[in-house]
């Protein structure tokens, strides 16, 4: 459910009042539903490289209404800025300013998406400057957009085509309602691995996915979303959460595995269950996590250790088992839930921040280990998400956390789940070692 304030100021009198008083004006975000169009309204593909032409052709193939030049006062669904051939920061001006001229014509919940190359492999300082310039420009632009519109970027490795599977996969993800709460973020496509799904409404058809911490909140949403996308679900949670877990497992027509992931044999148990019951294992989502908040000055050993044990040590141990297993060899996917606390930090969460920072470190390093069998590992870092847990925060802190982002509202568990479902799909086969923030472009910290 969208929060009450957002509902109130999204229409009618509430909308007028909020506008006059200069109050934040969040809108109800466009979220993905099976069968819904990828995006409504024309899509402007801007850029004069060959890569831009290829993108326009691909979009036409998806049945989108593609423009290479904006028509006056036509409402646009999206602007795609293809900047794959930048040589100098001076090259940025023309395409960016042209896009700027169309910003006022963006429809609600529109998208601005850049496609550029990663600065890390730039051949010269001027190329690197141009590429890094896209980063700063896009993050600033994301803060200027209104009415649920977001700006995100696809970063391509050197020589990688703008139409490589995961470049188009990421583009689709950013265009769609699946990325509703992803704003001001980049996804790097490192390789030409991956493939577009046969059925875009069932991108995970035939896959078996394990979701830890699936009994409630974000974990339950992940289970539902992966199931909606066609995956068979193994729902894992601690035995004490078994009743909620059973309800989720039955809802998504999967199986419940009552298991404490910090047990030494958890990885073995997960693999065994998936393979024996469902014949294979394709996707593992490390979602289970706990918080034991205290200022560091007041932190005790039990609080610190339990958070490290559950949030990162367990994931490391399970991943070791997965990497050893012959059953996890067919383009497998690992997606971990990190947190913006692990990136920007959060007062009272030194233990949690350490564990979630740990997740990010683990993901970046494990990517190379997954590569030999075309596997990927990525993380999503949620910001403020509307859950039972955040509902218990004190009102003032909750409201601040909820509004201090570019979309001026909290995300839904589904938003996190959508990002995970994308990273778990075949279309994301060229994306690995990445951390995707699902935070509405949180304003505080990093």
């Amino acid at each position, binding site marked *: 459910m969208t929060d009450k304030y957002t509902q109130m100021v999204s229409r009618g009198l509430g909308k007028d009042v909020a506008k006059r008083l200069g109050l934040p004006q969040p809108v109800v975000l466009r979220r993905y539903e099976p069968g819904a169009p990828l995006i409504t309204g024309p899509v402007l593909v801007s850029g004069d490289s060959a890569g831009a032409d290829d993108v326009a052709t691909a979009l036409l193939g998806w049945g989108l209404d593609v423009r290479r030049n904006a028509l006056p006062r036509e409402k646009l669904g999206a602007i795609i800025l293809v900047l794959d051939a930048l040589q100098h920061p001076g090259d940025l001006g023309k395409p960016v300013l042209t896009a700027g001229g169309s910003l006022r014509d963006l429809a609600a919940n529109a998208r601005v998406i850049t496609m550029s190359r990663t600065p890390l492999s730039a051949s010269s300082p001027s190329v690197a400057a141009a590429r890094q310039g896209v980063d700063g420009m896009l993050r600033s632009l994301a803060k200027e957009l209104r009415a649920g519109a977001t700006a995100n970027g696809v970063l391509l490795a050197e020589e990688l085509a703008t139409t490589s599977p995961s470049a188009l996969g990421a583009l689709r993800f950013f265009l769609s309602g699946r990325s509703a709460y992803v704003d001001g973020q980049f996804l790097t496509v490192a390789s030409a691995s991956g493939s577009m799904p046969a059925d875009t409404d069932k991108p995970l058809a035939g896959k078996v996915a394990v979701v830890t911490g699936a009994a409630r909140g974000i974990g339950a949403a992940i289970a539902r979303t992966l199931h909606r996308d066609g995956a068979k679900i193994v*729902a894992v949670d601690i*035995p*004490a*959460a*078994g*009743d909620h*877990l*059973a*309800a989720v*497992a*039955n809802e998504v*027509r*999967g*199986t*419940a595995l*009552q*298991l*404490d992931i910090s*047990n030494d044999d958890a990885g073995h148990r997960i693999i065994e269950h998936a393979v*024996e*019951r*469902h*014949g294979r294992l394709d996707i593992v989502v490390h979602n289970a996590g706990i918080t034991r908040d205290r200022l560091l000055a007041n932190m005790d050993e039990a609080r610190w250790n339990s958070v490290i044990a559950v949030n990162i040590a367990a994931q490391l141990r399970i991943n070791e088992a997965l990497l050893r297993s012959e059953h996890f060899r067919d383009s497998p996917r690992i997606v971990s839930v990190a947190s913006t606390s692990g990136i920007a930090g959060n007062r009272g969460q030194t233990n949690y921040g350490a564990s979630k920072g740990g997740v990010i470190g683990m993901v970046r390093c494990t990517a190379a280990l997954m590569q030999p069998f075309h596997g990927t590992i990525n993380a999503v870092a949620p910001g403020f998400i509307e859950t039972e847990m955040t509902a218990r925060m004190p009102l003032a802190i909750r409201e601040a956390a909820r509004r201090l982002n570019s979309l001026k509202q909290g995300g839904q568990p589904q938003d996190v789940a959508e990002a995970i479902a994308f990273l778990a799909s075949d279309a994301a086969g060229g994306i690995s070692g990445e951390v995707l923030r699902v935070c509405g472009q949180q304003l505080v910290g990093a």
Partner: protein
Amino acid sequence: MAAADMTTGGDRQAQQAPGTTRRAFIVGGNRIPFARTGGAYVKSSNQDMLTAALEGLIARFGLQDERIGEVAAGAVLKHSRDFNLTREAVLGSSLAPETPAYDLQQACATGLETVLGLSNKIRLGQIDSGIAGGVDSASDAPIAVSEGLREILLDLNRAKTPAQKLKVISRIRPKDLAPDAPNTGEPRTGLSMGEHQALTTAQWKVTREAQDELAYNSHRNLAAAYQRGFFDDLLTPYRGLNRDSNLRADTSLEKLASLKPVFGKTLGSEATMTAGNSTPLTDGAATVLLASEEWANSRGLPTLATVVDGEAAAVDFVHGKDGLLMAPVFAVPRLLARQGLTFEDIDFFEIHEAFAGTVLSTLAAWEDEEFGRTRLGLPGALGKVDRAKLNVNGSSLAAGHPFAATGGRIVASLAKMLHEKALTEGRPTRGLISVCAAGGQGVVAILESA
């Protein structure tokens, strides 16, 4: 319509040759934690609890939308409105609504009898899968109106004119308004089950110390089983409980010794049965998934153990020939003889702890030379049960005993124990289950690791 056809017929796994039998396997089980009466489940009906136990089983084994061959369960304390209790629980579950179900009632043996009945159907090829179980609530027990009021109400229903109705109503007297609550008393003797057992306990000279020690071991063993996660795949939490509320992990022989006797206080001999060595009234539900080998294999489901055989017995407790709860004493030797087995062949003994005295009287009878000769028709004593093999993961004294749910609890736990022991020892393992029941009845069964 293809999907609908799949659930209504034509999807049998393997055709059983007429006249042959096959093995029936225990895939696993699920129960909710047992709660002391008046506790966590005070607002839960039998249907609520049975449905919850089923839902946990369905989730564990991925049985959503599955048309199970048959579901059989029952309750001992049952409202008349629950005439189709099991079918109603099925309809409230995630199973295919085309799953048939029936209720069964054999007092405390209900749960074990549902396992035997369904496994027999599987053995005969009549069904490929079955869910057996039971449930009981002593908290939400039915309360009937008095016999006098019941007659008046029935007459009132038959009366046609207002004058006739008024005349019938005028017959109601204050004494008619006292409700008729259920009790565990035996209809033919008027004695409670505890008082009956007190007679047997005294007859077999079972000491207070021996009873307390059995109760202590039950709590200790059950607590240890929880501690090592034994119940992680046998139990699903319910209404905030994630272990049996009767379990006292910290109990001691001293604490048990300090309790005052509650049964057998008028027998002349020293009363030995306390609230500590007797099972309290409990609420809960348990289920067991049974299947043919093909059905389980085709779904990637485990086969932990087979249901080898079962036997029922009854005793003449009304005339005092035998104790009320001593029927298993006769059922077990008959079953062992039929299977050509002795106690030496049994790895685990699961003897339901209605009272510590019941278990100890049973063991005493089996160890008694004269009883063996005169009553069991054997050359001597039936044999001695190795205490190290008895109720090793606790039993009803610690877990509690929601009457019809106990059979399912024991069968699922024992199947897992047999499977684990067979794996570690690399040989087949066998377990014996013995459940006594009201009315002087008893049902026993043998399971073997698969």
